[in-house]
């Protein structure tokens, strides 16, 4: 046997081994190996825990106005108090609830609207595809935050309307990616086989198409969740999102503009909270993209 053949054999063996290894390595394993992704996942997890256990973690009631006003940080009030004497740290912890809730529901709205548009367009093709996608293009052509400002402004400022507005502005992005994924999955032999076997449309979408577009969806959801949280903060900052006295980070920053000369911590702390959550989601999104997009992984 020549040296070349041995090398070839060793080569195939290696390929076989690495294949086995990669099937054993689930994407969770890969995520743990990806440093940026792991850091992101930990941050996001901590924020979720803080939001869920806010009543246990917060040192004070977020609406309690017992303390002196505009206190600087101290042992009693770690991040100081605001213009009504409410504890800033407690309000930030409760603010995580508002932020995550609005973000998650908004993205659920985007996913629903975008999914409906994208799956119908990709699945039916032809005129349906053309009409729906032109509509998506037009919606996409609007500057997102401007559209959200107008929608919340007209519907009336509230966190519910902020969810609707943010949901609408990100729907076109979901529609486009979902349509693209549906088209590529539909070209797969197994979908064709299922069609030939007489599977109904609904079942085809539910059993074959949706499960196979999950990977790009997970990345998209993570990335847009961070945008949605930023958008909620922006709207609340402008007075168009979550309304006082409910503690939202954007709203707290808005109030801080008046009082920050006296107590700068009012302007610093809520912003840091936003940065931490958004950074966590962006890290996680980057990590997930590295893992779930094989094209990028090879590089």
């Amino acid at each position: 046997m020549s040296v070349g053949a041995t090398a070839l054999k060793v080569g195939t063996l290696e390929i076989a081994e690495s294949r086995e290894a990669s099937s054993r390595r689930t994407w969770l394993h890969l995520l743990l190996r990806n440093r940026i992704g792991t850091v992101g996942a930990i941050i996001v997890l901590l924020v979720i825990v803080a939001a869920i256990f806010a009543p246990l973690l917060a040192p004070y009631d977020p609406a309690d106005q017992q303390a002196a006003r505009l206190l600087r940080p101290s042992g009693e009030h770690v991040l100081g108090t605001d213009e009504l004497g409410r504890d800033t740290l407690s309000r930030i912890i409760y603010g995580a609830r508002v932020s995550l809730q609005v973000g998650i529901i908004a993205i659920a709205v985007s996913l629903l609207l975008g999914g409906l548009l994208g799956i119908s367009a990709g699945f039916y093709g032809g005129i349906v595809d053309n009409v729906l996608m032109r509509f998506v293009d037009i919606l996409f052509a609007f500057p997102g935050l401007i559209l959200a400002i107008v929608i919340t402004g007209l519907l009336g400022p509230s966190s519910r309307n902020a969810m609707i507005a943010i949901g609408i502005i990100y729907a076109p992005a979901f529609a486009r990616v979902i349509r693209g994924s549906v088209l590529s999955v539909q070209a797969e032999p197994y979908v064709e086989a299922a069609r030939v076997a007489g599977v109904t449309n609904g079942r085809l979408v539910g059993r074959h198409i949706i499960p196979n577009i999950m990977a790009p969806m997970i990345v998209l959801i993570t990335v847009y969740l961070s945008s949605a949280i930023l958008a909620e903060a922006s709207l609340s900052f402008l007075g168009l999102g979550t309304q006082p006295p409910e503690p939202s980070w954007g709203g707290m920053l808005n109030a801080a503009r008046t009082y920050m000369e006296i107590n700068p911590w009012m302007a610093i702390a809520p912003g840091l909270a936003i940065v931490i959550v958004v950074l966590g989601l962006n890290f996680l999104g980057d990590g997930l993209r590295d893992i779930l997009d094989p094209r990028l992984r090879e590089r």
Partner: protein
Amino acid sequence: MGRYILRRLAILIPTLIGMSILIFLMLRLLPGDIVDIIAGADAQADSASRAKLRDAMGLSDPLYKQYANWIWDLLHGNPGLSMRSGKPVGELILKALPVTIELALLSVLIATIVAIPLGVISAVKRDTGMDYVSRVVGLIGLSLPNFWLATLFLLFTSKAFGWVPSIQYIPLFEDPIGNLRQFALPSFAIAVQLMAIIMRMTRATMLEVLNHDFVRTARAKGLQERIVVYRHALRNALIPVVTVIGFQLGSLMGSSAIIEVVFGLNGIGNTLLQAIFNRDYTLVQAAVLYLAVMFVLVNLIVDILYGLLDPRIRQS
């Protein structure tokens, strides 16, 4: 090339019509009757005077007729009168336009100057400490809310230098230094996020381009690495980067709106927000349309540039 531009223009028209219909419907179909809001201040207004107001504003016409009237007036350069101040809407917007345009241009300029070299270095020194640091800094930049940055800037300058931004707009051509002083901080606050996006895009496309055969050829024939990177690779990597900058202009307008509020600059975004709070529907309608049209036109210009830079695009 002429045919390519014509084709792009042909796509533009239905988009503009669609956008105008959407804006129009949004303002008519959302809850809250304009007449009730205007008459609301006047408790004496009975149903007869309401009907009169409705007729005078053309609101009792069928929707398609209202839309047609609006477009007809728009095409004649008459977007209507502000419901709050009674001034022509076009005038209000023209006054606000230079502020928004200058903010947008300055922030793109700042972002590009910083981001492209950083992206190139990150790609060339891939997987080194330098690359790692700039990627993390990029992600942090993406996560900084611009209005928070702007607030911190104001806090810092007032605490450290006792400097407060002037409320009066200083035109660029009257007092360039005063103008730049007024615009530097707001533009920088907008630029940070854009910087992160451009840097990440430059890094990604540079990595791709550096793997191409022509780069290997350039290296093989003994060109200096610097020339290979900047003259051969970067030029090709820039095309998608230019597109990304074009796409970002939409979010730039959103950022601009918030930053204008923080710094008290009277741009289109700020005008729009005030109009929303005042329920000044003619002004809202016109301001949104202006912003949307600006965004679409800039993307058209980007598309045309793209065609000029890459002959393959205009032939497809």
